[in-house]
């Protein structure tokens, strides 16, 4: 029996088919239980794979086609700690989301569970795969399930529109990925990541390699929602049902970044090692994404849309870690990504609870209507602190590692970016918390001032089964547990060493190739790194949380801000806000146009730095 | 042989362009069906009969059919909407 690495993909697919086939006769509680149990088993399996892979990569050749003379005949899963950790994240979020939806979401028969499980299988397969075309297949698998899930809420008109933009823009991204694969295949006659890397390594970064890198990176950046490939995201994430939004915001965008990093380190790091300017190009994308996302986050009043732009902004932050193109940055980025995904998942569930109880998700209309929900307020504040990256959340340690890497790489200004961005996103959430749960901030001119009945039209999910005044444990527990997990990730004993070893293996192209093609599964070079100093990062984290709090309070009570300062800020902020809003006002045509603009710009920058 | 290949390539490029430039979706579905067929022929030239068979069944038949059905549905919806307005 040799199934373990394939199990987290095979099991959900099998259960999905069974649930759909048995839908007419399967009672709803059984379907619920089966779906949650399957997601839980997937999580545990991925965790086991993570533990095993710490001692050496797990390579699993489907069909038993082990490579001959360094040529891969089949497709393989190549499980390393980074991939397994992300797969675990997907499993955890899916389990939480399905538990949350247990009592809330009235599915159209049990088809919804089938889609969720296929979605999960796609995410996990994508994380574990060691073959470029196989990655593409799983990428499309989770994408197609995601398109269907995003537009699933057919009674909310916006969700269909969001799903259309999501599906078309992301399909264009997938086409670019496939074109990149075709280019690489034409050159090397290989699809296995390790074999691709081996074949390309001795060569120069010639035009084919550059353009293949461009196509793959842009294609995956669409999924990651790196600016300017992010215009589809807000509608798709914010208007999707909560249960789906948890996975969207928590792991899907992150996987776009993971894919770029994975493909870079296994395939392109050989020929492109000498391209000095690549770091600068990637950092430019990171900074733009982080700032645009942060500003847009602050401009939102729709709670889920706020989280959607927080996702964009933190994708930028994480990309900054990857963009340093070294193991230290990768380690920090991966840890940050895991903790941040858990925090955002928890926040999405909290917003779902608010929506469920108050039938609205607009901060202005909800003013002071959340007073009887102190636990929801607590969850929001904790989530905001998690986003700000204060200790003891895992986001803190992840950011500390990235800051350390930034100092080593000679880009200390990144620390400033981290502080600003974390302040922006946590400010938006704290402002909303103050308004909804404490009634702060006067009735805003744009809002309807808390009209009780007016809300149901915009955000409320239809199909609720029950309308208890008190949240059911299956709603609150997932949010609390996700936050707890976000803390645990950062406090786990020896986590820094584990992260550094995992990152060293992730960035070791030759080691990866040896493990996959020759079955030499040795752990990478042991990393003995001096302990990461945490005092300065803690200072920066607290600073950004305080900045966020200050911003939130200033937004809630502008009359308390000294007049001259207020006018000065308004003079700058007004035009910025107007421009940003205007840019994000478009539909499908705009998204695709920006995609092509981004591709042209990225290509031009690459060409400049290679010369 | 070369002449045949070049002809097919140019035909594919022209047919694909025609699909995009046909702005009326009903006509477009028919042009797309033709494009699917031309692509299928191109794949035969490429010695990929498996792919050609897929392309013809999907691109020239199933997909255009789905498009026409979707359009018929939209028209039916429009009809019922108009009737509702009249009332």
């Amino acid at each position, binding site marked *: 029996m040799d199934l373990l690495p394939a199990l987290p993909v095979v099991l959900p697919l099998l259960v999905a088919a069974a649930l759909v086939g048995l839908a007419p006769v399967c009672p709803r509680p059984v379907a619920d239980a089966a779906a949650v149990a399957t997601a839980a088993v997937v999580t545990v399996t991925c965790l086991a794979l993570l533990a095993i892979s710490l001692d050496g990569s797990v390579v699993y050749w489907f069909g038993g086609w082990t490579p001959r003379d360094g040529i891969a005949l089949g497709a393989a899963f190549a499980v390393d700690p980074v991939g397994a950790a992300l797969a675990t994240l997907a499993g955890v979020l899916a389990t939480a989301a399905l538990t949350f939806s247990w009592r809330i979401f009235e599915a159209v028969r049990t088809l919804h569970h089938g889609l969720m499980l296929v979605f999960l299988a796609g995410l996990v397969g994508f994380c574990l795969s060691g073959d470029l075309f196989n990655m593409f297949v799983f990428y499309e698998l989770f994408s197609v399930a995601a*398109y269907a899930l995003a537009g699933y809420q057919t009674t909310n008109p916006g969700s269909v529109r969001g799903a259309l933009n999501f599906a078309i823009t992301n399909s264009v991204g997938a086409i670019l990925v496939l074109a990149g694969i075709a280019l690489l295949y034409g050159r090397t006659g290989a699809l296995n990541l390790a074999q691709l890397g081996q074949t390309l390594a001795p060569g120069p970064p010639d035009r084919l390699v550059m353009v293949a890198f461009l196509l793959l990176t842009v294609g995956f950046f669409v999924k990651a929602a790196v600016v300017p490939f992010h215009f589809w995201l807000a509608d798709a994430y914010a208007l999707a049902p909560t249960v789906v939004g948890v996975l969207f915001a928590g792991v899907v965008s992150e996987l776009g970044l993971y894919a770029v990093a994975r493909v870079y380190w296994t395939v392109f790091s050989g020929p492109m090692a000498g391209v000095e300017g690549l770091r600068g190009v990637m950092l430019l994308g990171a900074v733009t994404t982080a700032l645009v996302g942060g500003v847009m986050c602050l401009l939102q009043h729709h709670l889920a849309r706020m989280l959607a732009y927080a996702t964009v902004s933190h994708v930028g932050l994480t990309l900054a870690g990857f963009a340093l193109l070294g193991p230290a940055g990768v380690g920090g980025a991966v840890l940050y990504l895991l903790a941040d995904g858990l925090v955002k998942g928890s926040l999405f569930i909290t917003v779902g609870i608010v929506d469920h109880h108050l039938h609205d998700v607009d901060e202005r209309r909800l003013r002071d209507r959340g007073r009887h929900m102190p636990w929801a307020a607590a969850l929001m504040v904790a989530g905001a602190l998690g986003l700000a990256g204060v200790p003891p959340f895992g986001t803190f340690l992840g950011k500390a590692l990235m800051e350390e890497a930034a100092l080593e790489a000679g880009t200390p200004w990144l620390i400033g970016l981290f502080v600003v961005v974390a302040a922006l996103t946590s400010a938006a959430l704290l402002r909303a918390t103050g308004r909804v749960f404490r009634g702060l901030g006067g009735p805003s001119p744009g809002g309807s001032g808390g009209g009780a009945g007016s809300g149901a039209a915009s955000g409320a999910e239809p199909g609720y089964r029950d309308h208890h005044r008190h949240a059911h444990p299956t709603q609150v527990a997932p949010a609390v547990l996700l936050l707890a997990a976000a803390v645990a990730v950062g406090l786990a004993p020896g986590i820094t060493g584990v992260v550094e070893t995992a990152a060293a293996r992730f960035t070791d192209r030759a080691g990866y190739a040896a493990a996959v093609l020759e079955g030499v599964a040795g752990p990478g070079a042991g990393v003995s790194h001096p302990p990461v100093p945490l005092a300065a990062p803690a200072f920066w984290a607290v600073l950004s949380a305080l900045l966020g709090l200050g911003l939130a309070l200033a937004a809630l009570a502008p009359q308390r801000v000294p007049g001259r300062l207020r006018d000065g800020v308004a003079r700058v902020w007004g035009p910025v806000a107007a421009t940003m809003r205007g840019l994000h006002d478009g539909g499908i045509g705009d998204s695709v146009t920006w995609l092509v603009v981004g591709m042209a710009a990225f290509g031009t920058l690459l060409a400049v730095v290679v010369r | 042989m070369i002449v045949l290949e070049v002809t097919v390539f140019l035909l594919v490029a022209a047919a694909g362009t025609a699909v995009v430039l046909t702005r009326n979706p009903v006509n477009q579905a028919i042009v797309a069906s033709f494009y699917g067929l031309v692509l299928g022929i191109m794949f035969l030239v490429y010695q990929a009969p498996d*792919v050609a068979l897929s392309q013809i069944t999907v691109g020239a038949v199933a997909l255009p059919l789905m498009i026409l059905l979707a359009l018929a549905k939209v028209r039916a919806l429009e009809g019922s909407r108009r009737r509702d307005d009249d009332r």
Partner: protein
Amino acid sequence: MRFLPYVVAAWLLLVGLYGIVTSRNLVHAIICLSVAQSSTYILLLSVGFRRGGTAPIFLDVPVGTRAVDPVVGALTLTDIVVGATVSALLLALAVQAHKHHGTLDPERLKPERD
């Protein structure tokens, strides 16, 4: 001739994207997306094509006959299925959008301001 099919593929990709960007009808945009997708079929099959090769089917010809690459054939098969299913899903979404908004014009389907 050395690069003609590659040029055709690039052309179809860009023409398809042009169609999406300028489209005033969602169904039209979806068909344009399938044109853009078809560029990848051509690209994949082109890189695996070998002049003078037979199809990789050794029923009537012996193994060892000069043949084209079977792998790109398998990849393109997958690609075609993906393209068709995504189109079907998009068409269903478009029908839904028409139902909710009464239009298939993407210009009139823009997100509301927050």
